């Protein structure tokens, strides 16, 4: 089983309770723990020089934050521009399949794993003394900021982290929502018929874009499979698809091409956001907010002409 999180494959699990610190003299930084960014064996205080990432989302954040040449290997998923935001940079690096022995081949002084990493893999890495840091899956924009800050500190690049956060916040601030107008009703449809409920990052992204997430009215968890007919009958103004045109076929994606979706497109505005904006909770959340706000404006214009 590959250790990559395609959000939507299952319900988002909360970050696992950290196992007791194993490395001798490891510094426990309480702020990291609060940040759902779990330090399992803290790296040395010096900047890590040989970083291997075994998770798509960790790949992207590390490539954004670390000096060139520090990240030695990223997952194969990061090299596909259909999945990843940092594909150009990732393509220049050797790819891994998320296996422990691949990571160890680089003699890493830091191994980044995702929140769904196999506990056996983490135990194995710790056993051979490789420092492991888990990069979480944030469920709020605040969580995204904390995640960036925590990894920037781990990589010894705090200024770069703050700059990344400031850039994201500036883009978010650029999206103006008129509070006097009623919010457009929206619903999200992702591969395998998943939608997003309250308490998820995408729900917050919708709210920031001036939309009212209809799925929040259903009795569902943050990320849950919902039958297509329920989505169709919610009465949304805007149907938001997590969809890539050029991706290889799968049943999961086929639901987004269902004729019912096409028939509904005559009644509501359908907007597709590429998967790379959904999969990880990174600074690309700002781009998702911008695109959705633009789609909402287009939907209002269309409603006005009808």
């Amino acid at each position: 089983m590959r250790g990559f999180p395609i959000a939507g494959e299952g319900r988002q699990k909360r970050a696992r309770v950290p196992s007791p610190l194993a490395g001798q003299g490891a510094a426990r930084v309480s702020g990291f723990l609060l940040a759902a960014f779990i330090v399992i064996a803290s790296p040395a205080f010096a900047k890590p020089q040989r970083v291997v990432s075994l998770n798509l989302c960790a790949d992207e954040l590390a490539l954004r934050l670390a000096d060139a040449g520090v990240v030695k290997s990223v997952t194969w998923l990061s090299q596909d521009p259909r999945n990843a935001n940092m594909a150009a940079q990732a393509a220049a690096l050797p790819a891994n399949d998320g296996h422990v022995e691949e990571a160890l081949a680089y003699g890493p002084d830091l191994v980044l794993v995702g929140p769904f990493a196999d506990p056996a893999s983490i135990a194995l890495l710790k056993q051979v003394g490789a420092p492991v840091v888990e990069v979480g899956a944030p469920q709020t924009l605040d969580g995204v900021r904390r995640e960036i800050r925590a990894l920037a500190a781990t990589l010894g690049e705090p200024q770069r982290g703050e700059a990344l956060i400031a850039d994201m916040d500036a883009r978010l601030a650029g999206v103006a929502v008129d509070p006097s107008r009623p919010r457009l009703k929206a619903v999200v449809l992702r591969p395998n018929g998943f939608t997003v409920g309250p308490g998820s990052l995408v729900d917050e992204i919708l709210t920031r874009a001036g939309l009212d997430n209809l799925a929040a009215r259903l009795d569902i968890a943050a990320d849950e499979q919902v039958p297509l007919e329920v989505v169709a009958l919610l009465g949304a103004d805007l149907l938001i698809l997590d969809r890539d045109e050029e991706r290889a076929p799968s049943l999961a994606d086929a639901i987004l091409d269902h004729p019912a979706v096409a028939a509904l497109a005559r009644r509501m505005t359908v907007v597709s956001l590429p998967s790379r904006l959904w999969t990880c909770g990174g600074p690309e959340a700002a781009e998702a907010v911008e695109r959705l706000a633009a789609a909402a404006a287009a939907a209002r214009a269309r409603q006005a002409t009808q």
Partner: protein
Amino acid sequence: MSARAAGAEVGYAPLVAALAVLALAAAFASLMVGYARLDVPAALADAFAGRSTAAAVVLEQIRLPRAALGTMVGFSLGLAGAALQGLLRNPLADPGVIGVSGGAALGAVVVFYSGLAGAFALAMPLGGVAGAVLAALLLYALVGRGAGTMTLILAGVTVNSFAGALTALALNLSPNPYAAYEIMFWLMGSLADRSLPQLWLALPLTVAGWALLLASGPALDALTLGEDTATSLGFDLGRLRAQLVAGAALAVGAAVAVTGAIGFVGLVAPHLLRPLVGNRPGRLLLVSGLGGAIVLLAADVAVRLIPVHPELKLGVATALIGAPLLYGLIDRMRKEA
């Protein structure tokens, strides 16, 4: 064997009529049952008036294909089961048990995930048919005529596990990160969120398969008297075999390409109905098809009513009924032997 000895008290025509009414009722129930509260009469009125309201879209594009495909696939599996059982003269010859469905799933998977499905419209169902033909030929090479039950089941196990392994391999080779998780659909089957175009694509091949299978009735009846007698009555057994393999492959292959492999329907329906047609394999064909449709539609209504999320795969529901039945059948055959 006389009809009376088999406990058949029902006439053939009334039986067919009763089963057809039951199948229609099951299809109607499938249309009514769903996850969202849908005002079916209002949706129907909208659909006929050409108003594409959300309710009409749900009825036309989601509920209708689901009910129609349930009927079509159930009929195919029930009919193919009865026909294969007549040909191999073995009540265990279900398309799922002997590996024809598994082969069809493999064929459909290869076509779909390689991107061939987009090349021409019929590619998907034809992929399923090709896989089913391959599995049937492989099986026939191992089993031949008049092979024992043991050989049939072992050959089925072999074909099934080989096809399953190749299906998993094909899914893992896909660059789409979701593909590897989709083996459950192909091995267990589901009617969730299928579409009208899928129904139209599968229907012609399926109906051709039905025609071939239903036309084999008299030859199957003659075959119960032994191969020599059947030949002396003027039936060409080589042609019969080709006709049945082609018919089963067309009906099952096209069905599996849309819904994935759904097991045990072709076992349960003929088993329950055989006594009612006086054990005549020719008469069992149409009756089993209708029975299969009823079984599958009932299972599909059940998976939507059981509060389990995500929805249970159809093969889970049919196996819960079918597997104990298969066990009992094997046990009885063992005692009779």
